[in-house]
């Protein structure tokens, strides 16, 4: 057999095996989306926990493989039922973005718990299966490949029989098709949801365990990518479509496998996100649906509860700003000033998020992408073109505004939680491009020796100098945003948030105003990212990750959507509080996750109220 043909077959088998794992993950997401209308972001965490449970059983308890699968299924099934309780049941009457955000909070908590228990380091997962490989006409197949294929096919058949011939399977299908009608047949939809979550978690856990066996390693951060890839596969086949998800998983596995063979391993994660965005924009109902429009959303993207926002008079805000400006004269502790500096910089990002998400109603989970663009723009301008910092900073804001808006452009036709997913994918694509565009970004190595921030020739390196610089940038950013919100533009954005169809009926060009919102938001975020980069003097593709995006959204929810003061208060609270209790630094994300879950459940309007 010629060499290229053998490579092709090997990659095909590879792709199908990995695709099987994606399919298992995607089917679970499809089940949950079907009955609960929810994109479960905690699904990746269940997958990771499945891998860890498997690892404990095999390496620590020396259990046989069959028993291990049983333990994984039971623990993950129970976990799934717990997620349904916390993430969905109490939030069923909220906007659909609320349970989605709650599952993000749950995933933070689960990921952090695993890190605390098993350390953040990868654990080696020696494969107990024999290492003999079957040779079929020059193509070699490992035992793990066969196991994964057998389990994938077996589960597919069981699932089919379950849905077609069991009572609970019928209830699942009926609930997915028409929840109200199912209730009127006497179906207890809460129990159906619970069953779907349990089943999905069992499939997800087994998928995680299989991937642990396949790559001989488990690590806590495997959750996020897995969840998003499962979601891409599900989307490819049509959200909630179970057979579609299986095909979507296999297609994604093959695309990745061939792609890696052609372009190299660092591209692996890019394909999933490009597929994700392409499907969202071109065929939001998946490959197999003839309908071109995404299912209608009864509510717009953000959940703005009826509330009375707490307003502070203008002199109050000025007084707070003056106190913040005078603070270094009274508190000299450089550590404390550094923490507050972080809070001001994240506060800027929170402002930018509250602008698109709160005011204009376009939930953004991709703000880290804007930060990265700003940081790289300014770093490259100062390092390569030797621009002065001040000019590079401003240019970084403008470049981010333009590039960021262009990147989000394809997502403008999406609504509600589809916007959240698209922006998440776009943020991830930015990181993947940075990782792979070696010539420009220096790839994995990142950019080093960024010049420190300067202002009119004065170099800001001392903690109090950086503190003032970042604070003034925050205040300028806030002033800029405040002016925008007071203008007719601000009113138009709010109109789009409240009812985009009505806004359109009044002749508002939605795309233009969404573009303006994202441009203003990206401008502020870009400047914050640029300043942060120069403050650290070093950046790479992992300086700003999706975790940052989610953290900032949490700040905004904490403070109150669309509420500028709330955004800054949220940023200060989530930056300073974990530091106050020094022991909590390790549990930071546990704290963030819990804060997110509690706010969505008990005070969706935020501490200061949404505007």
């Amino acid at each position, binding site marked *: 057999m010629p060499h290229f043909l053998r490579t092709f077959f090997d990659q095909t088998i590879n792709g199908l095996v990995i695709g099987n794992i994606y399919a298992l993950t995607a089917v679970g997401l499809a089940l949950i989306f079907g009955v609960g209308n929810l994109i479960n972001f905690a699904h990746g965490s269940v997958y990771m926990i499945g891998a860890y449970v498997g690892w404990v059983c095999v390496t620590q308890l020396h259990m046989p493989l069959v028993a291990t699968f049983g333990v994984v299924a039971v623990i993950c099934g129970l976990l799934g039922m717990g997620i349904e309780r916390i993430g969905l049941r109490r939030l069923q009457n909220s906007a659909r973005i609320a349970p989605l955000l709650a599952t993000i909070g749950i995933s933070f908590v689960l990921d952090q718990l695993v890190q605390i228990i098993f350390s953040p380091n990868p654990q080696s997962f020696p494969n107990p299966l024999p290492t003999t490989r079957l040779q079929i006409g020059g193509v070699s197949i490992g035992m793990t490949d066969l196991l994964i294929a057998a389990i994938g096919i077996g589960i597919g058949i069981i699932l089919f029989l379950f849905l077609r011939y069991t*009572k609970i399977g*019928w*209830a699942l*299908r*009926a609930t997915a*098709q*028409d929840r*109200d*009608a*199912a*209730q*009127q*047949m*006497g*179906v*207890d*939809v809460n129990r159906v949801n619970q069953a779907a979550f349990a089943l999905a978690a069992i499939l997800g856990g087994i998928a995680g365990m299989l991937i642990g066996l396949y790559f001989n390693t488990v690590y806590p951060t495997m959750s996020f990518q897995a969840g998003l890839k499962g979601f891409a596969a599900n989307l490819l086949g049509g959200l909630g479509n179970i057979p579609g998800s299986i095909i979507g998983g296999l297609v994604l596995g093959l695309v990745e496998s061939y792609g890696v063979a052609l372009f190299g391993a660092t591209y692996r994660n890019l394909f999933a996100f490009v597929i994700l965005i392409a499907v969202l924009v071109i065929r939001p109902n998946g490959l197999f649906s003839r309908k071109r429009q995404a299912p209608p959303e009864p509510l717009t993207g953000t959940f703005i509860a009826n509330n009375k926002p707490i307003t502070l008079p203008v002199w109050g805000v000025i007084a707070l700003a003056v106190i913040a400006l005078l603070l270094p004269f009274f508190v000299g502790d450089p550590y404390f000033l550094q923490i507050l500096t972080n809070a001001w910089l994240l506060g800027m990002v929170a402002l930018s998020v509250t602008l698109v998400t709160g005011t204009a109603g376009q939930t953004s989970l991709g703000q880290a992408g804007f930060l990265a663009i700003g940081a790289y723009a300014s770093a490259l301008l100062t390092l390569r073109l030797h621009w002065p910092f001040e000019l590079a900073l401003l240019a970084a804001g403008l470049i981010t505004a333009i590039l960021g808006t262009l990147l989000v452009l394809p997502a403008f036709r999406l609504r509600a939680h589809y916007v959240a997913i698209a922006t998440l994918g776009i943020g991830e694509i930015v990181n993947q491009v940075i990782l792979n565009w070696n010539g420009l970004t220096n790839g994995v190595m990142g950019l080093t020796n960024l010049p420190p921030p300067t202002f009119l020739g004065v170099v800001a390196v001392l903690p109090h100098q950086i503190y003032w610089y970042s604070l003034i940038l925050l205040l300028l950013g806030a002033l800029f945003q405040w002016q925008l919100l007071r203008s007719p533009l601000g009113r138009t954005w709010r109109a789009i948030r409240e009812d985009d169809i009505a806004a359109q009926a009044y002749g508002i060009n939605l795309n233009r105003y969404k573009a303006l919102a994202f441009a203003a938001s990206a401008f502020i975020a870009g400047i914050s990212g640029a300043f942060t980069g120069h403050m650290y003097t070093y950046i790479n593709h992992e300086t700003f990750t999706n975790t940052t995006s989610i953290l900032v959204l949490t700040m905004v929810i904490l403070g109150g959507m669309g509420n500028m003061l709330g955004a800054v208060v949220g940023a200060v609270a989530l930056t300073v509080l974990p530091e106050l209790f020094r022991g909590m630094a390790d549990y930071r994300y546990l704290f963030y996750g819990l804060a997110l879950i509690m706010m969505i459940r008990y005070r969706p309007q935020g501490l200061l109220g949404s505007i």
Partner: protein
Amino acid sequence: MTVTAVQPLLQLQKIDTFYGPMQVHFGIDLHVNSGEIVCLLGGNASGKSTTMKVILGLVTPRAGHVIFDGQEITGLATPKVIRRGIGSVPEARRIFANMTVRENLLMGAYKRNDKAEIAQDYERTLTLFPRLKERINQPGGVLSGGEQQMLAIGRALMGRPSLICMDEPTMGLSPLFVDRVLEQIQTINAQGVTIFMVEQNATLALQIAHRGYVLQNGRIVLAGAAQTLLDSPEIQDAYLGDGEA
């Protein structure tokens, strides 16, 4: 307290319902006796469909009582209401579009465990609706509007309810099918199932009903025997004035 000779099968007492700050029902009182066909008439936004939702537990009233078969069911979750013996033919039919006709019918018997009797009811339902038998393995979504209505009624029957609540069973049907559906409702009633239906089309509903109530802006403004209502000037004005009959 005097004991009434016949206790109504379904009773609504002084129901007040709100959607947020907006009041939909103002002290609704009505009852349905066992064996009757009772219709609730009213125009758009009169609170008809909400009445149905209150009975089925899809909306909880702020005040008042829903009593079924002598027991209070106010605020009970929908599946529990259904298990007490109420069947539902929802507005716009709401059949399971991707499940076959057979699966749809058997979903109606979801709450039951008596296999042999379910099989009996299945056969009886298909005898009542021979059209469904011809399409037994097709997905519900490909059926015509009239056939879907039959499926929705058949599905409700499969639960072996003592009362079926129908929300606008003739809505959107061709005149031919309207007559047929009304006939079938009468047949079902003759077999001992009590019917409570919400209708916009007063003349049609009153043709088969024993009694009726007229709902206007959340209040019962008129009640009585079907014939009395048909003859009443109010109904004549409201519904028959333009010679629709």
